[in-house]
């Protein structure tokens, strides 16, 4: 357990010393979202209809852009080799890195989502559901994304390949999440969506880091 905490602490420290890695993808996504009301026009009907999808695409893009860097620097400066060779299990280190990545990526976009919701005239029920859905889905996105990041480590054009590899895996989360927000906005009960998202999250927590760990070993063996 100690090594998980230490890894989280180390990665957060590195992110804070180089905030661009986190801030740039976030700023890009927020800018893209804010273009929609300008481009589509300020009609509450249209914006309300497309809001859920846009917020989710923003969350996906933020995750995708930042996940690329998750192991890259550790790979290039050789600290990843130390993580593999050290006595502490690589799996726990991977968990730590995923938690840190989520704290600066997924959690931030979740906390910002009410603001985005208001921009798109989403009602209070819808905003609550958005926060809840993102809270459950962004960790899943980071977990699944870490597999792609590990597998594309040694490749130069990793970024695009990650998108092709893992975007299809995001589809269930995307469909459930958007449906959940729409249901909530309409005032209906969305407990089923919550349970499904939570179930996917539970499975991802259990299995994704295992795949990530193996991915790192394979990439390092090149």
């Amino acid at each position: 357990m100690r090594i998980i905490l230490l890894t989280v602490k180390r990665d957060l420290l590195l992110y804070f010393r180089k905030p661009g890695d986190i801030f740039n993808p976030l700023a890009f996504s927020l800018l893209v979202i804010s273009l929609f009301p300008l481009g589509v026009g300020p009609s509450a009907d249209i914006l309300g209809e497309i809001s859920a999808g846009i917020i989710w695409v923003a969350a996906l893009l933020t995750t995708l852009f930042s996940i690329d860097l998750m192991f890259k620097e550790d790979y290039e400066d050789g600290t990843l080799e130390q993580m593999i060779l050290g006595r502490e299990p690589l799996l726990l280190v991977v968990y730590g890195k995923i938690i840190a990545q989520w704290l600066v990526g997924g959690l931030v976009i979740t906390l910002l989502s009410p603001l985005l919701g208001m921009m798109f005239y989403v009602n209070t029920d819808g905003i609550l559901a958005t926060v809840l859905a993102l809270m459950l889905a962004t960790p899943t996105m980071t977990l699944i994304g870490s597999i792609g990041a590990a597998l594309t480590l040694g490749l130069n054009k990793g970024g695009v390949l990650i998108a092709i590899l893992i975007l299809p895996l995001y589809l269930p989360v995307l469909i459930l999440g958007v449906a959940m927000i729409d249901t909530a906005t309409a005032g209906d009960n969305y407990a089923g969506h919550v349970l499904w998202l939570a179930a996917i999250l539970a499975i991802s927590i259990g299995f994704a880091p295992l795949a990530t760990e193996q991915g790192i070993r394979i990439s390092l063996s090149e």
Partner: protein
Amino acid sequence: MLQVNNLSCERANRELFRNLSFEVSRGVALRIHGLNGSGKTTLLRILAGLYQEFEGDVDWGEEHYPLYIGHRRGLKALMSARENLFWSAAINGQKTKLSEVDEALRQVSMGGYVDIACGSMSEGQCGRVSLARLFLLHNPVWILDEPFNAIDSTGVQCLVERINKHLSSGGILVLSSHVEVPLTNLQELELRY
């Protein structure tokens, strides 16, 4: 004790070595040398367990978890020398006090740089910080890839003393180096293709 049997490895359709067999017992250093591209780094990475594409057996007995220092020094540019070493110890399952970390850095004459980010150090200074691990960690097996690169003569002397101490306490060392090293109990292995 390290035992290697019939080790063969091919990279990019070129055979680096075939049916390589050797033994390194406790208290002995093995220096691997050979021309550029002869497979020294690949052999060291195989021994460390980082490279899997080979045939044959590598048996470390009970001594897995080697301390490996390769071309990539394993230092974060954005972290200070102290933070880097502390992390190295932690990932190695070793609980370390900061005073021990500082002492290790003093041993490699980097005592005045504990709080300096490794990114703003010179190549040689980074080399010293990364070698400070040899003074901090307790692994019985060391695998060092060109440890003398970019290090000045006093650094080399300091390193040689540390290695001899490691060997006399029953440690194992495998290193690659282009230069002759004045070590006690030295075995040599030349790679040629």
